[in-house]
């Protein structure tokens, strides 16, 4: 019996659960325009996992990277949820570098 997959599955469920929290909080304070940076962090996390020899650490970095990429695609919808009153709305956001350029790009949404 190999319980590695089961426990990494449980750990991934927590990482995905954390994703709900940081998407909601992150969008409220920082806004959805951070999405390219979040995608970048996710890609870096997955690429970094390839150079970690420990299976647990590599597996968790990969799951974290995927969760970050997914979360970046949720930021735009979360911004709308705040604007229409489903979540507390904070008008003053801490915007990222190049936010004026990013605003012209189509934010990913799945």
């Amino acid at each position: 019996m190999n319980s590695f997959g089961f426990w990494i599955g449980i750990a991934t469920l927590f990482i995905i659960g954390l994703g709900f929290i940081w998407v909601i909080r992150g969008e409220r304070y920082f806004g959805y325009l951070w999405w390219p940076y979040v995608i970048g962090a996710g890609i870096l996390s997955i690429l970094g996992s390839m150079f970690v020899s420990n299976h647990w650490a590599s597996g968790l970095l990969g799951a974290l990277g995927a969760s970050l990429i997914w979360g970046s695609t949720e930021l735009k919808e979360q911004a709308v949820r705040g604007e229409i009153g489903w979540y507390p709305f904070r008008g003053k956001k801490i915007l990222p570098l190049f936010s004026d350029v990013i605003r012209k790009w189509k934010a990913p949404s799945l």
Partner: protein
Amino acid sequence: MDINLMGVSTALATFFGVWLGHVSVRKIERETVNLRIPTLAALALGIGFETASFLTSNLILSAMCGILGVTLLWDSFEFHRQQKRIKRGHAPANLNNPRHAKILAEYPVATTFDWLNRSPRGSAYSSDELVSMKDGKK
């Protein structure tokens, strides 16, 4: 230095698992009349993947099955959570689905209107704007 593919594999399984739970659950819930069928299917698939993760000696395969199994087990609850969103009007109901038609008749806030089908504008909507938006004026 050896390349470890464990992280890439868990990333693929996580992304696919979340996609299944997010996009396909919404679509299946929208079309299915009897929610027990997809709920039980997700439960059975989840148990199947978890069993496979215990039985394989390959660590990468075990991790991928473990992640997919856990997300599928979560999805079996997610069908009912999606139905609750329909009742609250947070997800659009499908008039052609008799279960949704019943929800629309019983829950005044349930709607076929998709509130999220728009881009963020940077400011909160007033109640008047929300009413006119729902009425299709905006």
